[in-house]
């Protein structure tokens, strides 16, 4: 198995015919992702990239049995798109869009929870199960199949980490970009739970950054519930206080949310933290070697 997405996932793309949607949906199709439909209001009935286009997610679900949605809708309408997907019964919603107002996501998250849907993102690169399905904007070739799961707040740093894992002689089971906004649909703990239970994953790489306290809570969770090796990296050890570092959520507020605070929490929970971003691959490799020899 793998987590969340696989070959059989039936994907509908919201914002299908736009520039970004078209470009990335094509890349996903090339990768082998089972894209079954697209949604662009006003373009229902057309055919785009060889797939049917619908006006609403509900129609797409009724006609194609789509169960996963990938969203490229502009920020002003993205929360609406998330709600529409959940309302139509989509199980997994992957929102790539960056720049959504935090209040919109706050409300959307409460609603989709009541519907039983899972949201990945927003402001994230998406999710990939190596060799099976790529639902997002990451370069597929970097993620060679293997048995390491990746959870990350960042985009390109995830590619960097996956590349290091591959160079260290291993591969990726599933990699999930959870996004860098202050409120996100799925956090480290949700995914640690899934990876711990996944028989295709032997070890986990967790990449956090400054801002918020998700990493600290993840550290507490790992200590109690995760038996598989976890290698962590926290970006922003040199970030100044009170400045937003690119991601809307990457800000040290007062004295809270520093990299050091998170690194300490992870270390106190007994986790291995790579201090250098160049050592993510070797850190998980060492842990795997140790766990295999036991």
């Amino acid at each position, binding site marked *: 198995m793998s987590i969340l997405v696989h070959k059989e996932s039936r994907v509908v793309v919201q914002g299908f015919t736009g520039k970004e949607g078209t470009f990335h949906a094509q890349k996903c199709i090339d990768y082998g992702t089972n894209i079954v439909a697209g949604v662009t209001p006003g373009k229902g009935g057309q055919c785009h990239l060889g797939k049917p286009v619908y006006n609403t997610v509900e129609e797409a679900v009724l006609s194609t049995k789509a169960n996963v949605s990938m969203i490229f809708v502009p920020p002003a309408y993205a929360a609406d798109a998330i709600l529409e997907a959940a309302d139509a019964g989509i199980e997994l919603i992957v929102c790539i869009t960056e720049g959504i107002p935090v209040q919109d996501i*706050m409300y959307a998250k409460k609603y989709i929870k009541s519907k039983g849907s899972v949201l990945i993102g927003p402001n994230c690169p998406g999710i990939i199960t190596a060799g099976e399905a790529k639902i997002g904007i990451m370069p597929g070739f970097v993620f060679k199949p293997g048995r390491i799961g990746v959870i990350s707040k960042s*985009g390109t740093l995830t590619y960097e980490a996956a590349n290091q894992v591959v160079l260290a002689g291993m591969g990726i089971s599933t990699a999930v970009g959870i996004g860098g906004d202050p409120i996100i649909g799925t956090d480290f703990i949700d995914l640690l739970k899934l990876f711990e239970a996944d028989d295709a994953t032997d070890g986990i790489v967790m990449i956090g950054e400054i801002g918020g306290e998700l990493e600290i809570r993840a550290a507490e969770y790992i200590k109690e519930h995760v038996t598989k090796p976890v290698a962590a990296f926290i970006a922003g050890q040199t970030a100044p206080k009170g400045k937003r570092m690119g991601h*809307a959520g990457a800000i040290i507020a*007062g*004295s809270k949310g520093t990299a050091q605070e998170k690194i300490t929490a992870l270390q106190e929970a007994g986790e291995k933290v790579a201090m250098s971003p160049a050592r993510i691959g070797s850190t998980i490799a060492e842990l795997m070697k140790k766990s295999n020899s036991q």
Partner: protein
Amino acid sequence: MNIHEYQAKKLLHFFGVKVTRGSKASSPEEARLKAKEIGSENWVVKAQVHAGGRGKAGGIKFAKSLDEVFEKSEKMLGMTLKTHQTVGAGKIVRKLYIQEAIDIEREYYLGIVLDRRHEMPVIMASTAGCMDIETVAAETPEKIIKVGVDPITGLKGYHLRKLGYGLKLTNAEMKEFNKIMIPLFEAYQKTDASLIEINPLVLKPDGEFIALDAKLNFDDNALFRHPEIAAMRDEAEEDAAELEAGKYGLSYVKLDGNVGCIVNGAGLAMSTMDIIKLEGGEPANFLDVGGNASAETVARGFELILRDKNVKAILVNIFGGIVRCDRIANGILEAKRQIDVQVPVIVRLDGTNAVEAGEILKQANIRQILIAADLQDGAKKAVQSAEGVSA
């Protein structure tokens, strides 16, 4: 985005929050005129800069006559205010807020901010008014009453009662307090604020609550639906280079080191700063050219970084996903042609078409461009180059 106190008070007044009477002034003459219009007997002259801690730094002065308003305003305008919240040399005072002085019975702190953990707004109130809330939180956390407001319920009576009893208000005082709290919370929600602080909130001898100060920050992502708030932006208060970067779609933060860096992606950009430090150097900036980096954005990045004369070397760190590294390599060469790049440029390109990119740079054979094998090698070479130049 931040706004000034005078703008914040205007906005809060619009929502029905009782604020002190006052006006903005940009000259001592105007200050005197505004003071006369307000018609009090005592006034407060307040520097309008985007930073807290103004009082201690000399940015808030009392005046007992119109002449004194003039005099204090003249002194304050143009002065550089250095508070615990400003960086570097401080902030130049360009505008003032002239406000009526009021009688104070008691002072409170009142704030609304997003609680990221519980994913809802939290109202914070304290009887320790006028104090830095961070200090109160660290030293006497029991003095802060926190009430989370779930977006599903909205602000209800029981939230208000928790706050009122927590602040040990009498029933009559609670009624008055609610007159401030209800519109304040409405303002927070309707303007997509990310922070509201009233410090101090004042209880006057006549039993009425009034906002003596007001600080508002907004969610940048929501400004598109609040053009009237976006128009309040005071660009003079922001870092010129950061502002310009934003216009190009780049995310830039200036730091104090001498190794510049140009990176695609925020997480990788922070990591690049970190590894420069680990290699013994100091990063000169954070710069994210975005997931869709192009030759153009890289050239703009060079321009911005080179304006900082401390920079002695630049590390370009691109992990090409959707972005093709060969295009970035051409962008670097193009930037070199357009801009006078005097410092060594260390280039680390990995991912899509990295091999082709390496060839392009090798063939161009420019002495100042060093190719790095990986992230660690790039950081090491950049730090060494920067030291070499400065030595």
